[in-house]
């Protein structure tokens, strides 16, 4: 039995991160993470606690590091650089945003470098053996809904990347913490007081950002693909009624294409896989303001799984 990251002593994890790095496997990807920032150690210890701990991986997809470029920067107005393979693709950010910076950087590694899947900007969950794919632009309440469904027993595959297999259009999990912003944070805290949150990052370019721990069952099943079931375009509309309406597949196809990182890059293959995904999914629009009602609606939908 492989030990889990939560079984490491926090001090030990911190010293690992400062030296050889933490090897992390999440979904199909492997990272080596290094950083001397304490909040990174705390965040990883808490939010990736159920992931297996590897002493060493021979090959890592992404070798990343978050640190201040020099000693002076560490003392005065401390800022961090994100290093990917020794290069710094981003502007430095204040050390107070360290944990969010790490998660964004990890997302970026996938969005920009991996094209062996069709990738949608979407939350993906599973119930009754079928995947619920929810592509949405930022600010449409996708992550909030995703967090709520996970907290009510849906299995989380990702709150950010739908990875669609180019072979059979199945959904490949990459189960990582759910990112919540601004008001959504309190909404979820009220919805489920037992939810576990990582370091709070205030005043980021997206406002206040915090990451929520995925449940251990979702992490455990992180290598098991799921067949597509439902393709739903969610939208949070203040004060609105809960409404799930069917939409025709043709426009669902176009809208999903809009929310894809690499649909056009994959050319004919992208079209073929997107057709399979849309073909195999029931397509809906969904608008909501009440999370409890939303969960009930989706639970009911999950009963339609053949």
């Amino acid at each position: 039995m492989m030990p889990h990251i939560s079984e490491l002593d926090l001090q030990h994890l911190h010293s690992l991160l400062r030296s050889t790095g933490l090897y992390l496997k999440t979904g199909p990807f492997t990272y080596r993470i290094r950083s001397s920032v304490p909040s990174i150690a705390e965040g990883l210890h808490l939010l990736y606690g159920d992931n297996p701990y590897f002493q060493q991986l021979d090959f890592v997809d992404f070798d990343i590091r978050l640190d201040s470029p020099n000693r002076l920067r560490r003392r005065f107005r401390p800022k961090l650089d994100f290093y990917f393979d020794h290069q710094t693709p981003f502007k430095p950010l204040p050390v107070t945003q360290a944990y969010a910076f790490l998660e964004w950087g990890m997302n970026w590694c996938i969005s920009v470098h991996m094209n062996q899947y069709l990738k949608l900007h979407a939350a993906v969950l599973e119930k009754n053996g079928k995947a619920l794919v929810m592509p949405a632009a930022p600010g449409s309440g996708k992550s909030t809904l995703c967090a709520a469904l996970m907290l009510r027993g849906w299995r989380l595959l990702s709150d950010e990347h739908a990875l669609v297999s180019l072979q059979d259009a199945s959904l490949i999990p990459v189960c990582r913490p759910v990112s919540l912003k601004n008001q959504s944070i309190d909404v979820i805290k009220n919805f489920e007081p037992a939810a576990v949150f990582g370091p709070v990052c205030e005043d980021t370019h997206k406002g206040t950002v915090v990451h929520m721990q995925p449940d251990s069952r979702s992490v455990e099943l992180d290598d098991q693909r799921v067949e597509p079931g439902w393709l739903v375009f969610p939208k949070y509309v203040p004060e609105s009624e809960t409404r799930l309406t069917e939409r025709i597949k043709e426009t669902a196809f176009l809208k999903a294409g809009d929310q894809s990182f690499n649909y056009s890059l994959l050319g004919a293959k992208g079209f073929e896989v997107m057709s399979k995904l849309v073909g195999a999914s029931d397509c809906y629009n969904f608008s909501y303001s009440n999370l409890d009602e939303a969960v009930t609606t989706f639970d009911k939908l999950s009963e339609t799984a053949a």
Partner: protein
Amino acid sequence: MSRVSYLLLDVLRYPETLTGLTLSEWNQLIPQARHALLLGRLHALILHKGLLDELPEQPLNHTLSAYLASEKQRATTAWEATKLSRALDSLQLPVILLKGGAYFQTNLQISQGRLLSDIDILVPKAKLDEAEQRLNAEGWMSNKLAEYDQRYYREWMHEIPPLKHITRGSFLDVHHTILPPTAKYRPDPAKIMAAAKEITPGVYTLGSVDMVIHSATHLFHEGDFDHGLRDILDLHGLLTYFGDHEPGFWDELVPRAIELDLINPLYYALHYCSLILATDIPQRVIQQAKQGEPNPLMSRVMDWLFMRALRPDHPSCDLPFTGFARLLLYVRSHYLRMPLHLLIPHLSRKAWRRRVADKGEQTAPGEAFNIPKPKPSFWRFWAR
């Protein structure tokens, strides 16, 4: 002379060694190839040698991803070439593609897995204003540049400021000759255009020898060696392909370089191709090209510099003083480009503005759709 090899170079020269690599070796190879912009090319090599099924999947995801991006660029380039040819047709101007765009259009093997940052075309200087207006009308617009930059391009450079298409977002560089008018060597663009060959209706590339000479000139006059290995590999591929397929290629090469006043960069190209990649070049051609060789002292200095700068910009490939070598070559490129009385004010101005606006071009990590631009590597030399 330092000729310490490294994994990426070994693999490019002897692809069959790929099957014997351990995962830890792949863990070195993939970052080296990524920094050299050669991930896609590595994948093409693997496909070409039929090794796909024998190699581990995880590293191949990285080569495959880059290869797919390159295939997308091949399609985009063909489409852009069609659009350009329609735009310039009313001026009776051919579209002459340079560099990467030309390799794609001719479907040369070196274009397999290659990445482009922009499309470069060559237009006669007399028609430049008209061409720019036509292109503007068709949606290729100049980014807002500071007045100083506009003037820098228009007075001193061999190209106009880069254009970007307003809907497709593609970048276009319009050149009117292949070196800045202020440079030490003055090749006659009319001669180069006259030798262009038509690939598809209205779309041209340079003639084979000119393509090699231009690629050499570009590499050995530029100050940016971030992709030096990729460029030397392009030259190797061009020399090998034309040498094998076009009778008379080797006999025309050196005389043409002399005619264009570009024997010096051609000499460097042949010299470093054979030194780094053991390119098969006839001995008589190397002898002929020696007219372009610098004096013995300079030769040794250049070897010291280029054998460092033509390695991937990754710490695992650096030799002692690699950063310093890159810096000197950066300074050299400006010296070749402009006389000192123009160069010194220009560089001081650039350095000042860089300090003020450092990193302004980089993106915030949330904007995942943008591929960020790396900083010029020589600044890292100062930062060390």
